[in-house]
């Protein structure tokens, strides 16, 4: 989908590297920047263009944002409605 030829073993190597480097940068909230640089470095090993690597990282962030905002939104609505119910009773 990003226009990159990638085998599953290469994907395993890239994802494992990103997981490792994200763990190394545990002090940075949401691994901001750490994930992007990790993808770029890991992809460079397989001569994948940096733009595609950062695109993959941003796509992952977009996925997390979509799922995260949806989840936190539902949680907030649930918390508010249960608080209102407690107030009424």
């Amino acid at each position, binding site marked *: 989908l990003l226009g990159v030829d990638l*085998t599953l073993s290469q994907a395993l190597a890239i994802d494992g590297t990103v997981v490792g480097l994200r763990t190394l940068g545990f002090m940075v909230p949401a691994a901001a920047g750490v994930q992007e640089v990790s993808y770029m470095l890991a992809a460079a090993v397989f001569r994948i263009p940096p733009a595609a690597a950062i695109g*993959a990282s941003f796509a992952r962030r977009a996925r997390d944002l979509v799922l995260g905002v949806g989840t936190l939104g539902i949680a907030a609505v649930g918390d508010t409605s249960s608080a209102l119910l407690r107030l009424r009773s």
Partner: protein
Amino acid sequence: VRRGTIIALAIGVAAGAAAVIRAGAGAVAQALESLHVSGLLVMALLHLPIVVLMGLAWRLAAGEDPPASPARFLWARFVRDAAGEVLPFLYLGAVVFGVRALGRGRAIALGVVSACIDGVIELTAKLPYVLAALLTLLALGLQNHFTRLLSLALAATGVIVAGLIVAHRSLGASLGAMARVVSPVGRLCFPWTTAARAAMCKRASIGSSVSARAYRPASRCTSAAGVWAPARPGSSSGCSA
């Protein structure tokens, strides 16, 4: 949010911006455009089984008498991940959100303990995965500058993870303190939690976490598939997952 965290966030954002500038903002935007909404949807769908496995693993880490249903643990895991990715929190802040989503009273107390155990198992599971990545890099024969750099970084990760596993006892104490701040019920329950922690850790980490560990490699392999899917697969697949 502590000042150190804000500084770390600023450095991270600056590094990310530098990476985008180096790669070319236009080229990055073009790569993202080629993904389309359908690609994003595929990525989100591929991620769901990972969260489900993580939620089930968390429930198994809660011992023989979990404080909530599997569905509740799944939901709490979703909230935990969402807080970690969307809000400017470190690991502990996200866990506090997850524990709050688990329920109240006993659920908070046991949620804190099980999250502590779950976190240690998660860290432990990362070690073989990162090692597999390193071995794959070396097996593919890519002995260049980047491989050496990544090998060093991954080795450092291994050392840090091992250190964190050794220091996991203080993690439980920190989680408990944060849970007390978040919830008055958690404040009442935490003395019991502290007393029960030793027994829980013995029971859960030896018994249930054996099963919980089984979920981790599966979720990590699914994670690799999540990277592979957005790319167009090449002709020679060396799949070992």
